[in-house]
């Protein structure tokens, strides 16, 4: 089946090496992966299989040693730094295992963070109100209406992860990358997060790439890709 529309995000022949000690370690040895718009893909692998590295490269947080990363069919990894920063800000949303919220900011401010990065002080003055409403709506959607002004240290793990998801969505990205989002959570909270992700994918058509070591979690996705020793084994 040939897909006429370009993949929301894709990698071709991705290679990543780490230099350590005396030699080099090949973490990714040529990965090909395409995520169609509205696709929910899970990448499964054991520790050290390179799955987090793959996600970081897809999120333009790091540069590959070989191969390409494409966003909406356009090559992204060779763009100038400023352009890549902008893509990270607007086109890609990321959620991490450790939530990665800014501790001095409350829930709403954390969600607004990508917008604060995108706009300068003058532009912010005109967008302030709308942005705030947007952020509060997103937090309300994830059941955090009563936690708007709590700092991360006042939130539970599950709540923090939901704030992180809201943050990832505030710029209306084309794709959400999630690196072991339930890794630090108990089973119930984790299930809640996965439900939220599935709902986003079904209801909003958001393309999602989820990295996990747990096959049970991976099974909630539409498609599962196995990563073994730096190579893809399609399931």
């Amino acid at each position, binding site marked *: 089946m040939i897909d006429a529309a370009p993949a929301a995000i894709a990698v071709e022949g991705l290679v990543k090496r780490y230099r350590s000690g005396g030699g080099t370690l090949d973490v990714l040895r040529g990965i090909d992966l395409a995520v169609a718009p509205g696709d929910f893909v899970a990448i499964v692998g054991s520790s050290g299989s390179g799955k987090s590295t793959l996600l970081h490269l897809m999120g333009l947080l790091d540069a590959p040693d070989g191969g390409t990363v494409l966003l909406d069919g356009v090559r992204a990894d060779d763009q100038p730094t400023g352009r890549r920063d902008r893509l990270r800000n607007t086109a890609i949303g990321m959620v991490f295992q450790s939530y990665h919220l*800014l501790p001095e900011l409350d829930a709403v401010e954390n969600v607004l963070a990508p917008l604060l990065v995108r706009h300068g002080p003058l532009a912010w003055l005109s967008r302030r109100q709308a942005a705030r409403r947007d952020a509060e709506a997103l937090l309300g959607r994830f059941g955090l209406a009563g936690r708007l002004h709590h700092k991360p240290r006042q939130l539970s793990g599950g709540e923090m992860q939901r704030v992180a998801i809201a943050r990832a969505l505030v710029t209306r990205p084309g794709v959400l990358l999630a690196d072991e989002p339930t890794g630090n959570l108990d089973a119930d909270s984790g299930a809640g997060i996965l439900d939220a992700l599935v709902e986003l994918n079904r209801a909003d058509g958001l393309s999602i790439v989820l990295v996990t070591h747990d096959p049970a979690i991976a099974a909630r996705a539409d498609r599962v890709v196995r990563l073994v020793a730096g190579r893809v084994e399609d399931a």
Partner: protein
Amino acid sequence: MYVLFLCCRYLRTRFIALASVVSVTLGVATMIVVNAVMAGFAHEMQTRIHGILSDLVFESHSLSGFQDPQWHMEELRRAAGDEIAGMTPTVAVPAMLNFQVRGQWVTRQVMLIGIDEQTHAAVSDFSRYLQHPDNRRQLSFALRDGGYDTVDHQTEGGSGRPALEGAGWPHRRMRVARERAWREKQSAAGISAAPAGDGPVRPIDRQVDAVLAATGGEVVQATVTSPVPEASAAPVDPFRAAAPDEGHVFDPANEQSIGVVPGIGLASFRDSTGTDRFLILPGDDVKITFPTAGTPPKAVTDTFTVVDFYESKMSEYDSNFVFVPIADLERLRGMVDPQTGIPSVNSIQIRLAPGADLEDVRDRLRRAFPADVYSISTWKDKQGPLLAAVDMEMAVLNILLFMIVAVAGFGILAIFFMIVVEKTRDIGILKSLGAGAGGVAAVFLGYGLFLGLVGAGAGLALGLAITWNINRVREVVEWITGQRVFDPSIYYFFRIPTIVDPWTVAWIIAGAVGIAVAASVLPALRAARLHPVEALRHD
């Protein structure tokens, strides 16, 4: 926007960083206070020096001065007349002042200055420095009948001078009466007073004799008014006249010798209670030994009556200057041409009209009068080294104090570095959200700027508060330490003068903020260069 947002947020939440800023605050405050106090002192000193010297001084290179001050003054008017507000001639020679304290002769080296009592007060602040209010209005070398200030009139809450109560004619008459009574008692007891040449010769007398012998001088009696009055308690008077004027008996109770105004430092001292005590008073007689104008000069001694004291508050002048009428000095020194009656003088003091450019007028006069014969200087030229020394002191102090602020900079550098390390993960998060390296660096540079502003602002407030209350601060320090911090007998001020110059303050603050920003550059660069993935893994 996130740069501004985070700077403000970090400023509010990280109080420990304010600790690094305390040294900026202290450095700024110290610099403000020190600069204000030094500027105050320098200004006071400049004002006093300028008050003592006239605007311009016109002199000749020759030690015996130049002839015909009248003609010279007319020429000066011709060269720069519209700028000249007042002129007065002076004669100045080194001399020895001799007076008796409890029967002992005391000798002091002085600069004897002949002044014109009519015009001298117009060229400088001279009259302000006298102790009798009438003399301040118009100087007279005639002894006054009491009325001298019994406190230091130039200083608020100045030292008391109870000894000046009754100075002038009352004191003179009382002294004469006492001497007469003593002498009567002596003769009644059969002891003859003032034997000619007999009696023990005291060491001071030998010294004086030796000096006179060395210069080939003679003791000459040349006053119109009188022979030398007898010494009050000593049996031998080495200055006794060779021969008194015929037919005139000097009555010290009703007549005075030529008037003299000595510097107050020559004959007084301040005791531990802050009261001024005097060794001689207006109405007492002193002797002055000075060289004549001949070649070679001979030493001549004459008697003078103290009529007032000169107090400029600068010990250099108050312990050196002695003023007498110029006409008498010219005559005694033989500076008057016997045929024409035209005197010579050493210098002409010139006061310029307000707003005149001193250097410009000086240069104009230099062009009019040949430089190989005449020397023309502004008051700044004359005191150049002293004022330059003060300027250099200020410059060095400022450099040293700025080091305090520079040290503060290193404190900021260290604390910021630690903050960057602590925030490594947050920096990774920001980068993952799309923040660029420049923006992340800007967060820390901005933070440094804000801290600098806060610290400098606090320093400004503290510095100004101390400066404007400096005297109360001094009292508190003295109360705590029990020591006199600012001894009025040394400084001649009772209150510390301060001047706050807005430009100086602006520069201090700019420097302090600049250091704070400079100190945040290295940590900011480090933050900028962090790799997002590695940063996220931190902690």
